[in-house]
């Protein structure tokens, strides 16, 4: 009865629950996806969105206990044995993952890996050239993954996912690891391919702006529950559930910076050039590739400076140089006229990195972690002074002085990023380098951390260099923005002016690519 089948949803989850080692992770999740429909699954980290996707694909760890029903194209999937689930994967439902850098087997060519999808399902071998062309890759199939950029690798993963034109494609944060320009290209590609093939798309993202203009419906998840499901326009305009409302409020949140109060010149970079040795060949000598070329700029006391650019443009290398972690091939960086890599300079510049998980030693207590920069001081402070500085730094970032005796695993990702900021603040620096410091955080946590920065600017007159690929965040927390491209600063303008009247083509490209749904 083709008619009845057309009416039934392609994918239907009813009361799906998943527990691992007795711990409930998904609770009674119900959702439908119709053929050809684009549905976004959103929520903060740990909300169960990826788990829902893995359960649908049949890729949960073997020790996971799953209950409820999972129907796909009229078939009940949960009773099926692994070989039957495997026969569906790649052919009728496929998945694209978050981290393209590690998603491909490093020992096989991209062509072999794409062709395997067809081989494993006993389909005729694909026209690799046509398939690569369809995902916008102008590369021979004989390339290995390590020869490709992150965006290119994600296109290969997409090629594998669409090779057999499956009815359902699941994309789990497919662009989170990519820069804005690449992100918008990949989203467009996914949108076009699913439309051409008539596939349904389950799009998992923590960033509502990414899906606002492509999803038909949005499913909001929190702590393993579905809290709200509604058509995109309805949900964005009139969210019903309190959690959805708080998510939207946090996404739309604009940090209020205190008025610009800029003092004398703090840091000066002049003609900074940084080179990496090129891959060595047998006969030719190494020709150095400049990662940063003749870059000059100032940061004034209390100034809030942004640095944006596509990945590989040299912004992180430049940040490392400001911290004295990267030798300069040419030029100089000075702090109040003195060299940057002295102990005196180091106590005036601190840094917060992107990953709040990897940057703390798990065996030390918070007190010891935060006291670490204090050895930069000329006079070793007394224990009482140390305690006082730590208590003040913890209070400043909205944590409690009692937290000093805890270990790092007691804190969530957002709290850890606050601790990273507290560690940077503990010796009262004048400048903080924030290298993608809020990129890994959920929207609500991110809003709080940004407000905290604004507060510190008001209280301490802190200056910062805010490096990010997220232009909306840069816009809300900076006075001035540098745009980098291919190792050079191509535009240097006041934030408002840059966003209103971007002068350089690269700036315009970045602005055009930025998602601005919400």
């Amino acid at each position: 009865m083709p008619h009845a089948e057309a009416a039934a949803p392609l994918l239907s989850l009813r009361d799906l629950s998943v527990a691992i080692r007795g711990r409930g992770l998904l609770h009674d999740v119900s959702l439908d996806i119709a053929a050809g429909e684009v549905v976004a699954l959103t929520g903060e980290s740990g909300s169960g969105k990826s788990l829902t996707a893995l359960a649908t694909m049949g890729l949960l760890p073997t020790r996971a206990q799953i209950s409820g029903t999972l129907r796909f194209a009229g078939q009940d999937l949960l009773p099926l044995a692994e070989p039957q689930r495997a026969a569906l994967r790649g052919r009728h439902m496929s998945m694209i993952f978050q981290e393209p850098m590690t998603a491909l087997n490093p020992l096989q060519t991209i062509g072999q890996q794409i062709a395997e999808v067809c081989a494993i399902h006993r389909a005729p071998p694909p026209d690799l050239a046509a398939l690569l062309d369809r995902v916008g890759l102008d590369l021979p199939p004989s390339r290995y993954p390590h020869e490709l950029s992150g965006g290119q690798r994600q296109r290969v993963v997409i090629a594998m996912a669409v090779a057999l034109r499956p009815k359902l494609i699941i994309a789990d944060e497919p662009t989170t690891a990519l820069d804005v320009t690449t992100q918008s290209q990949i989203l467009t590609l996914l949108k076009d391919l699913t439309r051409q093939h008539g596939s349904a798309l389950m799009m998992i993202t923590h960033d509502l702006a990414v899906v606002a203009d492509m999803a038909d419906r949005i499913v909001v998840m929190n702590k393993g529950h579905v809290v709200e499901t509604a058509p995109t326009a309805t949900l964005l305009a009139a969210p019903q559930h309190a959690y959805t409302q708080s998510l939207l409020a946090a996404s739309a949140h604009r940090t209020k910076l205190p008025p610009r109060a800029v003092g004398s010149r703090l840091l000066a970079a002049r003609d900074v050039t940084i080179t990496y040795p090129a891959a060595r060949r047998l006969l030719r000598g190494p020709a150095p590739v400049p990662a940063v070329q003749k870059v000059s700029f100032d940061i004034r006391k209390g100034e809030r400076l942004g640095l944006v650019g596509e990945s590989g443009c040299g912004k992180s290398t430049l940040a490392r140089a400001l911290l004295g972690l990267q030798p300069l091939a040419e030029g100089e960086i000075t702090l109040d006229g003195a060299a940057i890599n002295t102990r005196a300079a180091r106590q005036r510049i601190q840094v917060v990195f992107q990953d709040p998980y990897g940057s703390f030693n798990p065996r030390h207590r918070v007190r010891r972690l935060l006291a670490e920069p204090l050895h930069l001081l000329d006079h070793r402070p007394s224990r009482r002074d140390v305690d006082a500085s730590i208590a003040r730094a913890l209070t400043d970032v909205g944590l409690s002085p009692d937290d000093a005796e805890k270990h790092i695993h007691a804190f969530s990702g957002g709290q850890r990023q606050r601790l990273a900021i507290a560690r940077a603040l503990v010796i009262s620096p004048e400048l903080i380098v924030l290298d993608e410091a809020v990129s890994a955080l959920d929207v609500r946590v991110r809003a709080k951390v940004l407000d905290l920065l604004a507060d510190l600017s008001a209280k301490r007159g802190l200056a910062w260099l805010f490096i990010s690929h997220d232009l909306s965040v840069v816009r809300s927390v900076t006075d001035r923005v540098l745009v980098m491209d291919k190792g050079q600063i191509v535009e240097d303008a006041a934030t408002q002016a840059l966003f209103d009247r971007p002068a350089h083509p690269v700036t315009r490209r970045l602005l055009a690519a930025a998602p601005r749904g919400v």
Partner: protein
Amino acid sequence: MWFYLARRLLSLGVSLIAASAVIFLVVEIAPGDPAAYMLGINAQPETLAALRTELSLDLPAPARYWHWITGMLGGDFGTSYTYRTPVADMVADRLTVSLPLAVMALVLAVAVALPAGLFAASRRGKPGDVAVMGAAQLGVAVPNFWFAMLLVLGFAITWRIFPSGGFPGWDQPLQALRALTLPTIALALPQAAILARVLRSSLIDALHEDYIRTARAKGLTPGQALRRHGLRNALIPVLTLMGLQFSFLLAGAIIIEQVFYLPGLGRLIFQSISQRDLITVESVTMLLVFAVIVVNFLTDVAYAVADPRLRRQGRRA
């Protein structure tokens, strides 16, 4: 690729020169005069001097080093002080036992370890894994000479399927193979146990890689993903281990050779040391060092073949 290989070749050459110098020096420092040893305590001083001249022992050390090195390059390993036969001939003779033994033992070790490691890794934590890894633990712990004696007791004395020792020579290939069977097993099993453990843990690491999840999303079952994508990635550390094991098997078989009374290289070294046959010790040691270094080079080449990233980068990541 070529840059990588050229670098490896260069390091091979440097290692060989350094090793030869060290070997020569150590033997030089070792006490005892081979000529005196050969003639016994009652030798006349004139006879002794004559023999020393004949053996070139009266030349200064650098000259003797040069003589030794250039001789070896031309295939002349010197003449044994004890047996008065060319060392090269003795070595060649012993190699007909040691080389097949080492190769067979390694092949057997891999043949056992590969399925065992795959089996255990694909059933991680289940009874099959526990059983295989328990057996491997035992294989690592049990000394191989004891295991060899068990084999002799079982297969040579009780059931009389294989000979308990000795080597008839390759004129009788079937008998020769039979003579080498028990030593091969005794040598291979402990190595197989180590290999299987390393392969299992390497495979389990590989199973957590994102590309395995991608493979399963393409429609591969866990077993297929393990064999098609996990195995080759997991083999890279195993290759390193195999290189080390082959070197060990070539020279380190001395105890097994002793148990089975086989005329192999290990026993040749042992005899030469106890008889102060220094030139034989030097040359055989150098030969073994050469073998180890060449095997390491081949391992590096195998790396480059296995891992496309090395071909481009020119250095190990």
